[in-house]
């Protein structure tokens, strides 16, 4: 069961990295994070209805000066491939992709989804890091945001369910 305390630590790390705009679609494991973003006065939170929109929403907000994260399950990452390619990569838009890693090692649900996730990210040219230890969240998140801006592209963090 996802805990609010763990979600708070991740939100704190995001804010320390300057993230002030989040677009999201829920997964059961992401609920405390979604609720945390809704409560946080320092973060503009946009609830999506399909993940690919989020690439556009984050792109528009980035043009307007926001530091953005798109949070979703990895099924949503697959939904977003065209916009990630023809908007985020092609226009060189930095954004953090926070992706719940369904079907990862030790997760029985969605094995096929787990199997294709990292190869798809590699094919999209998106650097990918795995968050499987909550203590590493601050360094991993700030490092990914710095890399996204310095390379002007999306960077993905795959979050395993155990972390939440």
């Amino acid at each position: 069961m996802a805990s609010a305390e763990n979600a708070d630590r991740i939100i704190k790390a995001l804010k320390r990295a300057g993230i002030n705009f989040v677009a999201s679609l829920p997964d059961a494991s992401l609920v405390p994070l979604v609720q945390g973003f809704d409560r946080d006065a320092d973060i503009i939170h946009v609830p999506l209805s399909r993940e690919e929109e989020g690439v556009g929403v984050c792109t528009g907000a980035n043009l307007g000066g926001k530091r953005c994260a798109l949070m979703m399950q990895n099924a949503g990452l697959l939904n977003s491939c065209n916009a990630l390619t023809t908007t985020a990569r092609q226009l060189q838009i930095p954004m953090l992709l926070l992706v719940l890693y369904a079907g990862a090692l030790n997760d029985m649900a969605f094995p096929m989804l787990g199997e294709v996730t990292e190869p798809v990210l590699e094919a999209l040219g998106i650097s990918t890091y795995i968050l499987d230890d909550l203590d590493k969240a601050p360094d991993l998140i700030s490092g990914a945001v710095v890399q996204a801006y310095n390379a002007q592209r999306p960077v993905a963090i795959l979050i395993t369910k155990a972390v939440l």
Partner: protein
Amino acid sequence: MKRKEALTAAKDLFGDAPCFVTVGLAWPDWNQARPSDGNFHLKTLGSGSSIGLGAALALPNRKIVVLDGDGAVIMNVNGLVTVGRVRPKNLIHIVFDNKIYESSGCIPTASAHNLSIADFGRAAGIKSVTEPKTIGAFKDAVKNAFDTEGPHFIVVEVEPSGDDANTSYSRLNEVEGKFKFIRYLEKLEGRALREDSIDVKLGLR
């Protein structure tokens, strides 16, 4: 009415508002009517409502315009759903509905059959939805959208461009176009918006 006629007639009403323009012939029509670094050429079909929403939330004191087409809107109806939920007051989304995929072979879209795009916008919860039928009514709708709180969704039925189709599709490098657009926004806003890079030590610790 044709899209080019409508845009040319109404161009002065847009002032210096930033405009996100869909992939296809709407781009040369608008960029010739109002040449400006504040015109942003979208790359992903259907992304207009989403990118417009993000920009509208990031720049809440400025009207943000999306110039869109029926084929594009239908590809990302989710964008309308989210605009209807979030309701950014400063978003003006204009759809030119020619009922065909004009830039990719003129095959009919769903709006040539049973779909009402305006009704979809209403059902999504977008606050102000209008369907102007004449150029005069279109100008009134645009003026009203700039003068009042939105979100505004203006759906204009137009004839296909046909023989008037713009043949001079200037292809600006998209990254250069992005930089010009950001500098344009920064000038309007009077503040820096773009972060070229983040220094790990200064930016985060």
